[in-house]
């Protein structure tokens, strides 16, 4: 087995993540890294769909949120929603089944649309989902739900949830890359590269797209369940257009053609969200006037500027920058200009311009 520098870097990162609770502060583990891993898990589904199937989805955050709402409706004992008050664990299978079925339904509806059309369609689903949970008071209403308990196994043990997030993230990462090598994954990549040829070869392109969307929805649902355990509450504004775009921004910042970019982007996003206001100069971008109530932090402006900058400089995000830097470094060291250009590994998507 060839140990590429890429898998080495991932292994080192995993080791670091597993050891982190022994030396990192509790705040860092719970509020920065657990959140990073959950968001990264959700964002990795966007990257999976984009890089292996060629579908740019904005509906992943909706499915993430729906899983949370389902857990909330099933588990919460009082407040808004159905308040079934069942055991916390029972929410998991129900949420995953509903999230996956929703993903399959949306995937079936939009399987014939591609490219930018698909992006807009999924954005529409996302916003409709927001209004659905806002208006339909049976399931939530704009006020949202609170007091959704995680299973007692996690209560008071934030590190346990962290470890679960690490393991699930790793599973998703390895799983997505493994799926890409199965005949199913190969067919998906064929659909990405040339749907017309694939359908004339006898593949049901729409069913493949739908199944890929369902798989991504399943993983996004897992992330949603983790999030509701971590958060304990959910309301429709947390699945409105802003957070929907945020998740996509995470995937884009990390680099939408590299799976590990999802977690990288999530880390940058979460860290920026928490630490930005402490940075003396950067935290004041966007006109901070002290006598205005809302002027304390302009995080979104900064994240927007970062996104704009990344899109203008490096459309494949931070992971793309790293990969390019590596390539430059390697070709500089080898000093063999006659050698062939570094060919991407078979499972790596061609670095097509998004």
């Amino acid at each position: 087995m060839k140990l590429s520098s890429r898998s080495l870097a991932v292994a080192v990162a995993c080791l670091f993540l597993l050891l982190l609770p022994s030396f990192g502060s509790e705040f860092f583990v719970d509020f920065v890294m657990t959140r990073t891993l959950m968001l990264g898990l959700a964002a990795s589904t966007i990257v999976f769909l984009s890089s292996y199937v060629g579908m740019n989805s904005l509906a992943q955050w909706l499915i993430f949120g729906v899983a949370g709402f389902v857990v909330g409706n099933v588990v919460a004992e009082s407040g808004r929603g159905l308040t079934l008050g069942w055991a916390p664990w029972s929410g998991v299978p129900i949420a995953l089944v509903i999230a996956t079925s929703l993903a399959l339904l949306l995937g079936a509806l939009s399987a014939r649309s591609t490219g930018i059309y698909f992006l807009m369609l999924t954005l529409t689903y996302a916003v409709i989902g927001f209004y659905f949970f806002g208006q339909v008071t049976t399931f939530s209403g704009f006020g949202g739900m609170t007091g959704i308990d995680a299973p007692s196994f996690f209560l008071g043990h934030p590190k346990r949830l962290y470890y679960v997030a690490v393991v699930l993230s790793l599973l998703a990462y390895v799983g997505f890359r493994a799926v890409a090598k199965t005949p199913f994954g190969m067919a998906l990549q064929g659909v990405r590269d040339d749907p017309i040829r694939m359908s004339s070869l006898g593949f049901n392109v729409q069913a493949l797209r739908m199944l890929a969307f369902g798989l991504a929805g399943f993983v996004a649902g897992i992330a949603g369940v983790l999030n509701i355990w971590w958060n304990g509450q959910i309301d429709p504004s947390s699945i409105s257009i802003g957070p929907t775009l945020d998740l996509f921004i995470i995937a884009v910042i990390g680099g939408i053609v590299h799976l590990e970019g999802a977690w990288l982007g999530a880390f940058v996003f979460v860290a920026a969200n928490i630490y930005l206001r402490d940075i003396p100069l950067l935290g004041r971008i966007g006109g901070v006037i002290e006598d205005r109530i809302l002027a304390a932090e302009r995080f979104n402006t900064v994240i927007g500027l970062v996104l704009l900058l990344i899109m203008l400089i490096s459309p494949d995000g931070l992971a793309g920058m790293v990969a390019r830097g590596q390539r430059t470094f390697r070709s500089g060291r080898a000093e063999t200009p006659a050698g062939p250009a570094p060919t991407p590994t078979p499972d790596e998507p061609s670095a097509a311009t998004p």
Partner: protein
Amino acid sequence: MLETNATDDADIKFGVLHMTPGQIRRFRRIPLAVVWLLITFAVVWVLFLADRSWTARTSAGAAIEEPGEFIVTLLDGLTFAGLLFVVAAGFTLIFGLMRTVNMAHGAFFLLAAYIAIDVQKRMVGKTRNIETDDVSMLQWIIPLLVGATIAAVLGVVMQQLFLRWNQGQDLRQAIITMAVTVILADQMLFQYGGLAKKMVWPGDTVRFFDIMGQRYASSRLFMLGISLVVGVLLWLWLNRTRMGMVIRAGVDDKDMVRALGINVTVVFGVTFFVGSFLAGMGGAMGGSFAGVALGTDGQWLLNSLIVVIIGGLGSIKGAAAGSLLYGMVTAFSPAYLPADYTFYSIIFTFVILAVVLAVRPNGLFGRSE
């Protein structure tokens, strides 16, 4: 490699993944039948069944019994469709020519509305409690033009700075406009706060009149009139002027237009100006019609998206058809749904979207690429 292909394929083809073209075609006929069934049921329900003692209670009665309520609902749908058309036409114009999905369309809408409201306050000379009678026609139209022009200029600046040189990379362009949206939304929250604001109709347009026992505000008809004027002007511009001819040709074949020696850059700039201007106009109209607040930008991005997805991207005709359909559904579903379920009306938005996509994946007037 070649010899193993046959066995590999055999592994992959199973179940639903492998249907003959005939089966797939027959499979696709199901949605159309369902669509007709749904439409028939909706029409029968609205005309005859709604709010009878043996059916569910609805806020509006059956059309043959309560024609006034029916006409008012119809007018509500029509006037809202007019506003939808103004905004969505700008969106679809930009997409049709440049393949740019302008995610900042909603942000331009909101920004223009805020600016128009501010300008109106300055012109009237009152900062709060402006009555419709304080406002003359000019004090409504000038704020509208100012707001729309600023939105339009901003649109052109965005296009020239960020989008001109990566033409054709549609996802990258969409993300760039997304970044602009995030920045604009945050800055607007900073400037204008989170409270709802409203522009005031000019006094001359706010009269109430009677339709079969129902009171109706003429300001909504005024809005419909403006939308019709915009529609006619757009049609004249696109079909009767040289610039419009170039734009229509560009929609069909951009490279050919460029090869004929036409300065496409200028045409792109003008189109972006007009598209963003329409968003801004819609903002001022929507600000008078329903008020604006934090989040209105996302709502109107959604509205534009739904209209163009229904109507077909890049088609003005499609924008008209899409706004009509969407406007009608948003007006009729709360009025004719059973009273306990009116909050489910949002689902109908999704239903028309799903239905249209199931039958015509590229929208009613869209062309397959």
